[in-house]
């Protein structure tokens, strides 16, 4: 028994199963982060000042606590990785597996770089005793960026698999492998997009 439309798109819907599945999954993810962003708005509206008091010190702007230059760098890294992700997929369509390896490798490294930068950011917060329990601002910051970080790690696991052991499929079932890279890309762009919303809402506003 084979399931229809695992590789080729169904004519009347125009997509193959996995692509539709990932879009639906992303819709659900939008609701997850939507719920968290709503919580952020809800708490911020109810707060007398934002970020407010931390360790007896009053902060007027988020950028006084958070490291905007580092976050800007991270934004650039993630946007860049989305570009390399598309190039990796396009290379497969052009039958250039060597280029695929290069671009997918770059995407993976960019994810890693993002996490390293993030780790430095977290580290300096911990050093100052800025822990999630100190204030709702910090709680939101750590929860949202932490959950986003987990999504980055999840994406890197998938990308790493497609770069390493999963790449064998290119020899046996190239069409399916291209599909896999495509849907992994959809997810990766979503992770990127979440950050593009997170960065201004938490760091700048």
């Amino acid at each position, binding site marked *: 028994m084979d399931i229809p439309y695992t590789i080729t798109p169904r*004519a009347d819907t125009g997509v193959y199963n996995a692509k539709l599945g990932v879009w639906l999954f992303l819709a*659900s993810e939008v609701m*997850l982060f939507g*719920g968290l962003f709503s919580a952020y708005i809800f*708490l911020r509206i109810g707060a007398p000042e934002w970020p407010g008091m931390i360790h007896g010190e009053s902060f007027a702007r988020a950028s006084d606590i958070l490291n905007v230059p580092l976050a800007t760098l991270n934004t650039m890294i993630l946007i860049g990785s989305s570009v390399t992700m598309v190039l990796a997929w396009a290379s497969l369509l052009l039958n250039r597996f060597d280029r695929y390896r290069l671009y997918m490798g770059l995407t993976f490294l960019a994810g890693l770089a993002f996490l390293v930068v993030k780790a430095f950011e977290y580290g300096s917060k911990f050093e100052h005793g800025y822990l999630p329990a100190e204030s709702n601002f910090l*709680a939101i910051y750590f929860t949202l960026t932490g*959950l986003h970080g987990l999504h980055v790690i999840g994406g890197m696991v998938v990308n790493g698999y497609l770069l390493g052991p999963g790449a064998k499929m290119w020899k046996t079932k190239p069409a399916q492998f291209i599909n896999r890279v495509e849907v992994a890309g959809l997810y990766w762009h979503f992770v990127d997009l979440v950050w593009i919303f997170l960065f201004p809402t938490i760091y700048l506003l």
Partner: protein
Amino acid sequence: MANSAEGSTTHETHHVAESHADHDHHHELGFWRKYVFSTDHKVIGIQYGLTSLLFLFIGFTFMMLMRWQLAYPGEPLPLIGWLFSDETMPGGVMLPEFYNQLGAMHGTIMVFLGIVPLAVGAFGNYVVPLQIGAPDMAFPKLNMASYWVYFVGGIVMLVSFWVPGGAAQSGWTSYPPLANIVMTGQTMWLIGMVFLITSSLLGAVNFLTTIIQLRADGLTFFRLPFFVWAQFVTSFLLLLAFPPLEAAGVLQLMDRLVGTSFFMPSGLVVSGEALDVAGGGSPLLWQHLFWFLAHPEVYVLILPAMGIVAEVIANNTRKPLWGYKVMVYSLIFLGFMSFIVWAHHMFITGMGTAISGFFQITTMIISIPSVIILSALLLSLWGGSIRFTTPMLFALAFLPMFGIGGLTGLPLGLAPTDIPLHDTMYVIGHFHYVVAPGTILALFAGIYYWYPKATGRKLNDTLGKLHFWGSLIFMNGIFLPMFIQGMAGVSRRLYDGGQIYEFAEGVVHYNEFMSISAWLLAVAQIPFIINFFMSIWKGKEVDENPWEATTLEWTAAPSPPVGHGNFETIPVAHRGPYEYSVPGAATDFTPQNQP
């Protein structure tokens, strides 16, 4: 028809599927892959079915224990009281903490581990691919994962009774700040919920993809059986409503484990001591996020039930559903509206009259499509030659029972009448009428209706009718007095059932009657349990279409369907789902796949 053009292009794929099916028959799967870690939607459906029936029984047992305490407060539980530890029932007398644990876990288990997995996981899994002419679900491995994640979630919930302080005890709604400061059981509850949410996410993605992608040739959306439509809308609700609860769960876990104050307001004093938290959070935030899931969840509980009832009614009245298209439009509208009514659960929180006004209006609007669907089902009976088969009895009983549940909900949807009724037994009566004599009777209808498809044998009718009348009578015996108690003002969360309150004096004696009804309801399930297991071997053998139905699961697949790929050849649909008693046709049912 858009699909007729598409038919020719997909033909090739199906031939490939068939040749592979032949090929697959050569290697038999071992026991573990065939029955335990199976990727076959039929096996997974049965796994879901058996597990969720077991959880329904566990949840019901919790309630039977609580009903002893409500009927005879402070008296030791006879016969089995000694089985319980000193932390729960010393000398057979239930402690208040244990009562609260049973209450919270009854709700959680019934909703998230019992009814939803039975309605969606079991019936959806088993029936949807067969009804749409698909060889399996779109993602069979995800399907298996979905079941096992659900299973682990269930185990986590049950194990939580043995952690220090026992299971979660802040109600199934887990309102903070209480839920933030109670013992470890609440953390287990949250972790269990994360598993259950993940499971339902995997399931929802799978169902939607399956229904959109794997419909057989010629099976356009408006040729889908109403049951498939119900599962389709339900899956959207699961997909989009559950994540905000997951978000809320993450935030509550942070509050409990990391010490954040998402749900902790400033200046909170517990047992005379100020809590050492940063504060600034809002308990209302939890309620918004929780009910954003939990209201659509109500429709997750009821829509598959409506789908089952629609199938059974069309089949047993021998005529098409009255207003099939209107029912489908109502279903879609209902699904959409269910996302914007949640705060009608929160009228007494002080969120303001403007917001209350908005949610009252949306709540009144959402009652319209529900009434349309119920009316259409009722009108479908008109002029039919009704066969009173066992599934039909359950389906017929669903209509007035769900009607009572729905109509008693109207006063709760309007703030002025909700305020005195809020958190009283009236509310318990209302939603149990929707879910217990409503959904559960419909699920029983589904079991009696599709059992022959899954096993090749029919359930016994005499035992079935005994089960039906017992269930119907005793369910009403439990839930009807709740309205009276609630209107007298008895709160839903009283350990002694309201004995200490003077205003409850006139109604508190109903508790004994309700409790006896609950225990008799358990007795009424005995014929069902005997029937369910005995009929596997002793039931009357049936052919592929014992009910003379029109939909593909009956007309194109043997009973039970073949192991790999369901159908010997993938069917093609030529007509709508309910072509019963077509004038001039040879029989009073015209199968969907008949050219």
